């Protein structure tokens, strides 16, 4: 890595840590410089925020950490914080003489990894290296996930044998994970190596993404390759790997879109005819419901109005215990009033944070809806309108800025007789980084419902002109999209069998593949994505309850603003499931949700249904820039 500016840390980490100090007060600058030097750090001081940004931009990897004052004349410290996080993804520590809780809170919300009070003591500065180290570790984890994902994809490419692919990938995943664990035992040397080959996490801002898309179009989708894109984009600090992983996600997204489109068209007829198939025909139930959902959704029943956060209602009766995937964090901010969210009957399990009614809540964490309950899926009244909420956060602590949570609740009035559990899915689109102005974009997009219909909603109010189930957001939003795919009849607990997934894929593949034209080997990707995530493990361990948990819609790369459609993979090819139906929706790196459903029939719906249960631990691992929306369904026929 270049380090003409300063060499990376030497072996005796944390000595040599490259710190950039920004403060308008010259006295403090001097003192901090001296203190940091005493800690054996390499210090650069700066009196102006603008100057600091220049320095940072000039030497992309020239610094390890930034310490900045909050009150500065030329730029607000928080703004600087955002910029740094967005562009360089470096840990930033804020300082101020003012220690009011609200200020500290603001700092944390903007992404500061620490907040120090002036006067600052030496001992506080001694430990700042932990923030750097922490980030390194997480980056490595991410990178490895990406790598394994890519590896899987390679394996998979061209393969129609999802089964094999699935298994393979899981193996790969395991092995990669092992590798990761080993690697995680850092000793200084490793760390130093890492630091020298540091792959800073890239935040794909709107602009950046636009550039990316433009480059892709210019090159021609089939001829596209990371190197070419990188060259065309002409973004100095972007690496080939960044582009590669982004490209992969983009492909997934497109693939999904493609499917949605196809499905939509094919479903046109179905939609109405089936309408609330009250009879619980196992076979078609899902399909019908889904189509219905689609219709409804398509018609904007699902409306994203401002930020309505739809709480996911998890099946009330289901097991509380299932709601593990849900990460609920008290909503930090309320953006707009939300209307209508969750319908009554839901018990929002674990979704305490979601406080939807009329509040735009921006929960920090992704919310995962659980749909516990094994047997039936009950669909609660679907309340899509305004079920769009923007939540801020992603699953991980670090991310998330805007999330839209949608939890459509489908009322079980029809068809799914045995459907007991309510399917709520909340879709969180959380933009991983605050920087994304996804919110705005998404809002505009509006009618794209982010819906994750979890199994069975009879009336899927899937709005969205196309692809009802299309997730609109594709921006690094951890969206949880529970796919309603399984609605019918008894939906038994998720069978976590991987094979089911593959079956699903097969189903899907058969139906969808013709339509999925793009080069994106979507199914492959799905698989890879799926597998990639630790979710696979979860899958195997998921209980028999149907849980729509944690649909964390991983951040979806925001492909084109216009694309906000939530791909609701639900109704896709669900064959009747006898066994557990697993739907894994893997988003981004981390989560997969498994939803086991029984007797779910998947009509020719090719929507990937995703219902996956995201185990809590996945959330920890969530750290991705964009999700790969993968819906993974296992259909056991």
């Amino acid at each position, binding site marked *: 890595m270049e380090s003409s500016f300063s060499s990376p840390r030497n072996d005796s980490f944390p000595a040599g840590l490259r710190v950039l100090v920004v403060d*308008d*007060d*010259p*006295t*403090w600058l*001097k*003192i901090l410089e*001296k*203190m940091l*030097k*005493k800690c054996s750090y390499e210090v650069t001081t700066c009196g102006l925020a603008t100057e600091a940004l220049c320095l940072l931009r000039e030497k992309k990897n020239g610094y390890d950490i930034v310490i900045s*004052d909050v*009150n500065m004349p030329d730029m607000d410290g928080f703004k600087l914080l955002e910029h740094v996080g967005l562009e360089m993804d470096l840990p930033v520590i804020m300082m*101020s*003489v*003012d220690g009011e809780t609200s200020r500290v809170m603001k700092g944390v919300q903007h992404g500061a990894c620490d907040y120090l009070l*002036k*006067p600052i*003591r*030496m001992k506080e500065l001694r430990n700042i290296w932990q923030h750097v180290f922490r980030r390194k570790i997480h980056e490595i984890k991410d990178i490895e996930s990406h790598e394994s994902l890519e590896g899987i994809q390679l394996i998979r490419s061209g393969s129609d044998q999802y089964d094999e692919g699935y298994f393979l990938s899981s193996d790969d995943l395991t092995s990669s994970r092992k590798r990761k664990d080993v690697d995680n035992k850092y000793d200084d040397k490793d760390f130093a190596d890492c630091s020298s080959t540091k792959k800073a996490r890239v935040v794909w801002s709107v602009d950046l993404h636009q550039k990316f898309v433009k480059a892709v179009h210019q090159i021609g989708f089939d001829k596209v390759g990371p190197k070419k894109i990188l060259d065309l984009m002409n973004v100095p600090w972007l690496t080939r790997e960044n582009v590669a992983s982004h490209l992969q996600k983009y492909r997934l997204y497109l693939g999904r879109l493609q499917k949605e489109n196809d499905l939509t068209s094919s479903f046109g007829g179905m939609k109405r005819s089936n309408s609330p198939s009250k009879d619980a025909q196992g076979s078609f139930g899902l399909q019908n419901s889904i189509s219905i959902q689609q219709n409804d959704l398509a018609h904007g029943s699902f409306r994203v109005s401002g930020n309505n956060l739809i709480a996911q209602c998890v099946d009330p009766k289901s097991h509380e215990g299932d709601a593990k995937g849900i990460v609920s964090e008290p909503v930090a901010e309320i953006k707009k009033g939300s209307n209508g969210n969750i319908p009554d009957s839901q018990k929002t399990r674990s979704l305490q944070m979601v406080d939807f009614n009329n509040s735009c809540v921006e929960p920090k964490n992704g919310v995962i809806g659980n749909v516990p309950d094994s047997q039936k899926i009950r669909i609660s009244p679907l309340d899509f309108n305004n079920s769009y909420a923007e939540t801020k956060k992603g699953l991980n602590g670090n991310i998330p800025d805007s999330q839209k949570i949608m939890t459509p609740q489908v009322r079980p009035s029809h068809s799914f007789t045995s459907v007991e559990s309510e399917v709520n899915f909340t879709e969180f689109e959380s933009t991983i980084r605050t920087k994304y102005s996804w919110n705005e974009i998404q809002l505009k997009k509006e009618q794209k419902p982010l819906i994750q219909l979890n199994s069975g909603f009879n009336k899927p109010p899937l709005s969205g002109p196309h692809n009802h189930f299309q997730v609109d957001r594709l921006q690094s939003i951890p969206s949880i999209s529970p796919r309603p795919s399984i609605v019918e009849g008894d939906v038994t607990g998720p069978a976590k069998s991987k094979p089911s997934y593959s079956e699903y894929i097969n189903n899907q593949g058969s139906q969808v593949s013709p339509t999925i034209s793009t080069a994106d080997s979507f199914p492959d990707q799905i698989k890879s994505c799926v597998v990639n995530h630790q979710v696979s493990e979860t899958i195997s361990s998921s209980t028999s309850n149907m849980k729509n948990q944690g649909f964390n819609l991983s951040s979806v790369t925001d492909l084109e603003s216009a694309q906000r459609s939530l791909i609701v993979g639900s109704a896709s090819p669900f064959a009747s499931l006898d066994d557990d139906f697993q739907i894994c929706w893997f988003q981004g790196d981390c989560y997969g949700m498994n939803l086991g459903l029984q007797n779910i029939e998947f009509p020719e719906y090719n929507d990937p249904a995703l219902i996956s249960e995201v185990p809590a631990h996945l959330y920890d691992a969530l750290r991705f820039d964009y999700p790969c929306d993968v819906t993974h369904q296992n259909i056991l026929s």
Partner: protein
Amino acid sequence: MERNQLRRQVRLMRQSLFDQGFLDEQFVQLEELQDDANPNFVEEVATLYYRDSSRSLQILEQALQRNPRDFNKLDNYMQQFKGSSSSIGAKKVKADCQQFREYCNAGNAEGWQGKLGQSRHHVDPSNQESHQQPESSLD
């Protein structure tokens, strides 16, 4: 002999500054930072501080005289001043700053005027500089 006496004097002065609450622990930290690489560290920092604080006080006075008084701005300036005072461990000044800010919040301008005068006194270099110089000249 004289040297020792001077030293003692300096020590006493220093102690009194602490006792009177002009200085706090931060000052000690600064002293600890001083080492062979920066033998005059404390003096340098103090110099910077005086320069900065006199500027801040000037700005504050000007802002105070403006009509109508912009308390937000005043608050900001005061915040800055407080920050810098904390750097050197100027306890009293810092406390004054805090009080200022409260006045600001309450929109109490008269209180400001009074406090400002007081702060000036606290910052008065003669209080502290004299303390610095003897020390450095002794070494």
